[in-house]
């Protein structure tokens, strides 16, 4: 069996631990803990790094300089931001449903972080390679809408309420085409397991070639899923101030912010895995390929985020139900026909 760099390192640690401890069960528990630690490290590091990246890229698009005061080329800006946000007063507005309100930013982080368990970072480097991978992933990531609802409804603000309702509407209309667009891949692969999907692309071609329509549909729904322009209804600044987060400040607001970046990263990772062949690639190790593709996807997301206007809520809904969903269904049909023909050839 081929193994990537990450797995080699993991096996090395496992071997050393086995030498020291000698007990299989304890070593596997420790290995799991190391994995969880690494995962959380990746999420927080990525989120911090992406705040900087987004600001720099956005500044580049907007003919500005971006952060350039704190540290060399403003590299320490995220840390300064973090310190500022943490030292802010914790304002609890009058009339909020305190428990739900305080819980929402913390709960929001859970689905974002949980999704990372299913990402194949490298050959074999996947935390939970379960046989219903995609299914679980979609189930978990769609939970994040609940926290927007919690935040919006609990904050006793009309802006928050509108934002929450918009989040639910967005989620309802974009979850369906997203799932159907991924169905084509599952049909070709014949498996819901994440590692199988990457392996299938390694053996043939990337799914972006076989499923170009599904790729476009998935990309579109991703914007709705991560609440970014052109579908940033949850917090569309010019209309409803900050939507569901209007009443949050300081560290609580920062958690929403971090979750947004964690979601952004997870969406880029998923696009890479589903359509760009995951960690597969020539010469370079799989881990490097994986991150190169992810960063490429991320840049596309940033590019669209900073050049597109926002669509209106009814336009977004009708686009989701009248264009994307039928298109995704047609894609499923054609994929089925293609597979059927392929069987006889």
């Amino acid at each position, binding site marked *: 069996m081929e193994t990537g760099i990450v797995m080699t390192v993991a096996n090395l640690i496992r071997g050393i631990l086995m030498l020291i401890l000698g007990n299989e069960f304890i070593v596997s528990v420790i290995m799991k803990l190391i994995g969880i630690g690494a995962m959380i490290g990746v999420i927080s590091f990525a989120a911090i790094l992406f705040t900087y990246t987004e600001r720099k890229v956005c500044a580049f698009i907007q003919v500005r300089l971006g952060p350039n005061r704190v540290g060399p080329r403003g590299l320490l800006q995220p840390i300064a931001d973090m310190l500022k946000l943490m030292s802010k007063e914790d304002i609890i507005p009058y009339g909020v449903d305190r428990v739900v309100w305080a819980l929402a930013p913390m709960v929001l982080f859970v689905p974002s972080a949980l999704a990372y368990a299913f990402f194949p970072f490298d050959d074999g480097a996947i935390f939970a390679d379960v046989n219903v991978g995609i299914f679980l992933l979609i189930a978990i990531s769609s939970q994040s809408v609940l926290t927007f609802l919690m935040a919006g409804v609990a904050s006793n603000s009309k802006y928050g309420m509108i934002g929450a309702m918009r989040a639910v509407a967005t989620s309802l209309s974009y979850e369906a085409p997203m799932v159907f667009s991924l169905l084509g891949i599952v049909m070709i692969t014949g498996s819901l397991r994440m590692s199988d999907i990457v392996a299938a692309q390694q053996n043939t071609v990337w799914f972006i070639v076989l499923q170009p329509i599904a790729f476009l549909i998935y990309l579109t729904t991703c914007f709705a899923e991560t609440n970014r322009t*052109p579908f940033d209804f949850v917090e569309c600044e010019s209309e409803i101030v900050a939507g569901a987060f209007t009443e949050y400040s300081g560290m609580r607001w920062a958690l929403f912010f971090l979750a947004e970046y964690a979601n952004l990263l997870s969406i880029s990772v998923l696009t890479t895995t589903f359509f760009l062949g995951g960690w597969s690639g020539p010469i370079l190790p799989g881990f490097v390929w994986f991150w190169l593709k992810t960063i490429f996807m991320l840049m596309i997301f940033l590019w669209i985020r900073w050049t597109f206007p926002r669509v*209106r809520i009814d336009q977004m809904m009708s686009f989701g139900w009248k264009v994307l969903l039928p298109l995704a269904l047609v894609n499923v049909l054609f994929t089925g026909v293609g597979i059927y023909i392929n069987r006889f050839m």
Partner: protein
Amino acid sequence: MNEFETNEQPRTETYVLNMGPQHPSTHGVLRVELELDGERVIKVRPIMGYLHRGIEKLMESRTYFQCSPYTDRLDYISSMNNNYGYCKAVEELCGIEPPPRANYIRAICAELNRLSSHMVYIGSLANDVGAVTGMLYTFRDREDILDIFDLLCGARQTCNYIRIGGVAQDIPAGFDEKVRKFLDRVPDFLKEYSDLLESNEIFQIRLKDVSVMTAQEAMDCGMTGPNLRATGVPFDVRKVDGYGAYPDFDFDVPTGEHGDNWDRYEVRYKEMFESAKIIRQALDGMPEGDYMAKVPKMLRPPKGEVFSRTEGTRGELGFYIVSDGTNKPYRVHIRRPSFVSMQGLNPMCRGGLIGDAIAAFASIDPLMGEVDC
């Protein structure tokens, strides 16, 4: 029987959303009471006055010369046009005829300011429909105009350059080249805006066929300027009255067809080309001579009154001045175009969504300094 079981039908009711005075897209400090049914707007009630400084009252206790800087603070992103309007009114009251050179310089300043104001318009409209980047591009190019004003009079925004009887000083050396260099760039950056915004499908569907006004509706709301022209009425005070040096220039009055947000945007976009055309003609035909007419140090206009209007950047800017023969105006009334245009907000937003209301609000281009006076 279940305690939740009742015979009552589920009922819905409207709610009121107070947008502003602190809101990211109210262009200052406007408060708008939106009566909403879900996302749909039922009624819009603009509540103004958060920036009311009583400029009309203040002017009553200042001399005619001292009043001029107050007009800068009305519409603070097109101060030249306000100065022009005020000075023209006082000149008509006193019978002062500004020299032709002054008229040409005034036309250049007013048109440059119109360009810069329309840039702010395009930028803030883009920002309000979600394209944040548009704003940065327009503000980048507006900087060039502000630099020209800086060269001209030392101030960037509140110029107070156009004075009663002419202009404060003659155009400095290097002004001509600087303006020409800027004019050469105008088609380039306008192309850039249209590439960034107009060619975007989303920008089009956000603006087209939204907040439609017919010509009659627009006139009933007292709309003037680009907002009226977007409905197809070619009413431009520069053409209708032909004041100052404007009869000497060859320019078109762009009009729209449907009176929707898109037309309001397009009219201003095309107007920017026309303004550039006027500036170029004014530079080419700049007459020699005085830049200031003979104006007494102590200006005492004869007893009487005047209503004088100019084409401001937001519509028809009128000054009504009553003189009682002293060196201070007895009464000044300013017909502020964006104040009157605010009447159009309710008919424009009614029946739309919150996003439409924001776009409509940005598309009539009100400036709170002018609305609240």
